[in-house]
């Protein structure tokens, strides 16, 4: 099945870019929009994925001014297949955030600018809502695709860990990072995914395993995960289950042990890895420059690393602590064991059905409602997106309802390497569902 993408001739492109710029002033979807005309099928790319010749900042001041001289493998494969990148999308700095607010100019929700876009792939979700027939190449570590997709009324597909090469992806946490897609049609996402999957000689962790689409009409609901969810969300989700059961889906309620530990386990692993991945930012080879080389190297590095935002600093400090030899067992190794335990238990159900849940435990919050919450409160909002991310299971957030004009998203999860079954599910869902958007350009 081939998708339908926006393609523009030169004259149309100029008009399109000026419309996009105008919209971007309100919504902050893009960190960079390319003025050069594009001949291919238009996509956008999250700003932590390298596109040759375009700035790549991961929304961090420490990468300001950096223009990579090479393409990420996923981008190379898309360009080789007739796709063109129009620009780099806004995000939480290095992927650190669930609301898109850890960026100098946070992206706004396209349905209502007082509301968050979700994060960390905030700009990719906004761009997808905004642009006709769009797919944005995004990335998820702990929920960075599902969260913004749910809040912006678009589809977010996070593939199996390793299905898509990470070469050229600016690392957050290497054992968790996954390039994925935000779009608004199953056919479009499928086409982009088919062109990017597969082993890459430049990324050891990219896999050659074939991606399947074993379908099932069994939906598992994890009862012990529903505790912390907003009552209103629960009600809407119950209605969704009723609707699905009329479409021949069989709903089964189950309990999965250790899931309540997935959020702390995820943050322990991701912070440990992030604190090593961010050690490379030192202020002289690329990005932000300290310039005063006569500073002693330690002072020089300290001075450069002031450019990290607050959340990045928090995670680097905590990650450094967790890796210390004397306490590694207490946190880091425990978290690895929990990941192992949860994978086995989720697999038990995923081998013959999907797991389904709301994508986020709350309605889309206003920016003002979440800009001052504590880190632990913010991390807890990832309770539903973290389990599949921690365990590398492919999952997809799709819009299913509009409450007072704002979209709601649900998330379905399948077994490793069965990613295409999610798109089959979506194709079926799209038959009876109409996406709504406030405005679309192109």
């Amino acid at each position, binding site marked *: 099945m081939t998708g339908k993408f926006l393609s523009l001739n030169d004259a149309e492109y100029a008009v399109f870019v000026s419309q996009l710029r105008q919209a971007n002033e309100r919504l902050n979807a893009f960190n960079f929009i390319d003025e050069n005309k594009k001949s291919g099928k238009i996509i956008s790319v999250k700003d932590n*994925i*390298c596109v040759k010749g375009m700035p*790549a900042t*991961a929304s961090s001041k420490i*990468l300001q001014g*950096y223009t*990579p*001289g*090479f393409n*990420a493998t996923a981008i190379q494969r898309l360009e080789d297949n007739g796709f063109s990148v129009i620009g780099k999308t806004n995000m939480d700095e290095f992927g650190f955030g669930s609301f898109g607010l850890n960026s100098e100019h946070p992206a706004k929700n396209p349905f209502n600018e007082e509301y968050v876009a979700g994060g960390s792939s905030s700009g990719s979700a906004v761009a997808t809502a905004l642009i006709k027939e769009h797919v944005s190449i995004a990335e998820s570590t702990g929920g960075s695709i599902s969260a913004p997709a749910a809040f912006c009324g678009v589809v977010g597909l996070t593939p199996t860990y390793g299905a898509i090469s*990470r*070469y*050229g*992806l*600016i*690392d957050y*946490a*290497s*054992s968790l990072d996954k390039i994925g897609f935000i779009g608004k049609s199953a056919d479009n996402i499928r086409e982009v995914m088919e062109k990017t999957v597969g082993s890459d*000689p*430049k*990324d*050891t*962790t990219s896999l050659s395993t074939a991606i399947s689409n074993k379908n099932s009409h069994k939906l598992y609901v994890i009862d012990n995960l529903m505790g912390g969810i907003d009552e209103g969300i629960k009600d809407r989700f119950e209605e969704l289950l009723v609707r699905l059961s009329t479409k021949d889906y069989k709903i089964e309620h189950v309990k999965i042990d250790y899931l309540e530990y997935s959020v702390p386990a995820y943050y322990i692993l991701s912070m*440990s*890895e992030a*604190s*090593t991945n*961010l*050690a*490379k*930012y*030192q202020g*002289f*080879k*690329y990005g932000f420059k300290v310039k005063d*080389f*006569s500073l002693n*190297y*330690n002072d020089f*590095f300290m001075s450069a690393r002031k450019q990290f935002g607050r959340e990045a600093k928090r995670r680097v400090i905590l990650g*450094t602590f967790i*890796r*210390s*030899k*004397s306490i*590694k067992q207490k946190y*880091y190794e425990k978290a690895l064991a929990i990941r192992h335990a949860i994978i086995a238990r989720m697999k038990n159900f995923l081998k013959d059905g999907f797991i389904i849940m709301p994508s986020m435990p709350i309605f889309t919050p206003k920016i003002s409602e979440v800009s001052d919450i504590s880190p632990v409160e913010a991390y807890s909002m990832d309770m539903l997106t973290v389990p599949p991310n921690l365990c590398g299971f492919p999952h997809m957030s799709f819009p299913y309802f509009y409450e007072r004009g704002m979209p709601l998203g649900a998330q379905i999860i399948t077994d490793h390497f069965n990613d295409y079954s999610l798109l089959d599910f979506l194709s079926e869902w799209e038959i009876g569902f109409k996406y709504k958007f406030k405005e679309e350009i192109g």
Partner: protein
Amino acid sequence: MKIGLEVHVALPTKTKLFCSDLAYENQEEPNSNVCPVCLGLPGAKPVLNQNALDISARIAKALNCEINEKTWFVRKVYFYPDLPKGYQITQLDGAIGVRGYVDLNGKKIGIRRVQIEEDPARIIREKDYSLIDFNRSGVPLNEIVTEPDITSLEELKNFIEELRSILYYQGVNINQELKTDLNISLAEKRVEIKNVTGVRNLISAAEYEIKRQSALIKEGKEINAETRSYKEDSNETVSSREKETEEEYGFTFEPDLTFYDTTKLEIPKAIIASNVAKELADRNEYNEKTIRELILFNRRNLSLLTSITREEFKKGVSLIEKFASFGVEDYSEEEFRKMLDKDVSSIEKDGFLQLLGRANNAEKKADEAEIEAGIKEMLSFDKTLFDRGIKDEKAMNFMIGEVKEKYHITGKEAAYFIKKVIKGMLNN
């Protein structure tokens, strides 16, 4: 006295440990042999060099290590401008080889670990900045960590010689300078001397440190557990600021790589030349020291001496020595065999060469064009040689020496050619 070492050697691979740039140092300009991986650019990922894994397994086996069935890598985080990613990819618990030893005449010096790791970049200290060349970044190394089993300076020297010989037979270039961290404790407290370059400096540093610690003990003073560095100019060790501790390195699994199965590697039996020397000496009732000298760092000598009979042995040894003293280096095994059947005991150079069949034009003369090209090449490497031309006697003699050796021609001829070539170049 307890001495332990951490010895770093570069592996003889063509390309770097995690990317396809050349691994060996070349004449190219700085930063000409780099890519996103060894520059540590955001988004680049390491992929392990198969050959580096093979060679490391062979080295570990030659050092009598147990080979870990699954080997894996860790990140060691520290900050220095020559370390592009802010962490070094190295090994710890999952090291390729563990619990080995080197046999020094019956005494076993324990090898705690053989680990695979990447070399940092080359850094040049300037007054107000540093200059960094990433050509060396990512060159594959083995770090060989010994137990503190060495108990005298003599033993240290013997160990280093033995280690270098073992490594030579694994293809490691023994002309490269060894980089060593040296732990010495005469009392309880351990003193570490970091980053000693070369064998000579290693011995001098150990010598100095032994004297220093003995003097402190004699005076009844405390020895501090500390990190010191060796100053080559003044031949002493001085206290240096502590680098990161193990607590701070925060070693974690390298998630950009995976586990590597070593059970399917084919590891041939290692040649331990000192053992071979012992066997040859016993079998042929010959002086062991002489044999050691011939074969410790010479693959061909070892192969020739192990391939001849007991009756031929004595003659074989003196024949090898004759070849060497007559300056014939490029002889084949057939030529060796041929000469072995002849009586060369009291023969002079000319007669020897005649027998060998290299008498007339024994030193097969290169033709003029070839010599000319050779001189031009030499001059292009060092432009000052040409500038100084024939006026500078030192430069002239150097060139004559080089040409003589390379093209087997004698004094006057060499001088004649060089002058001719330089004149020709000046005229152009």
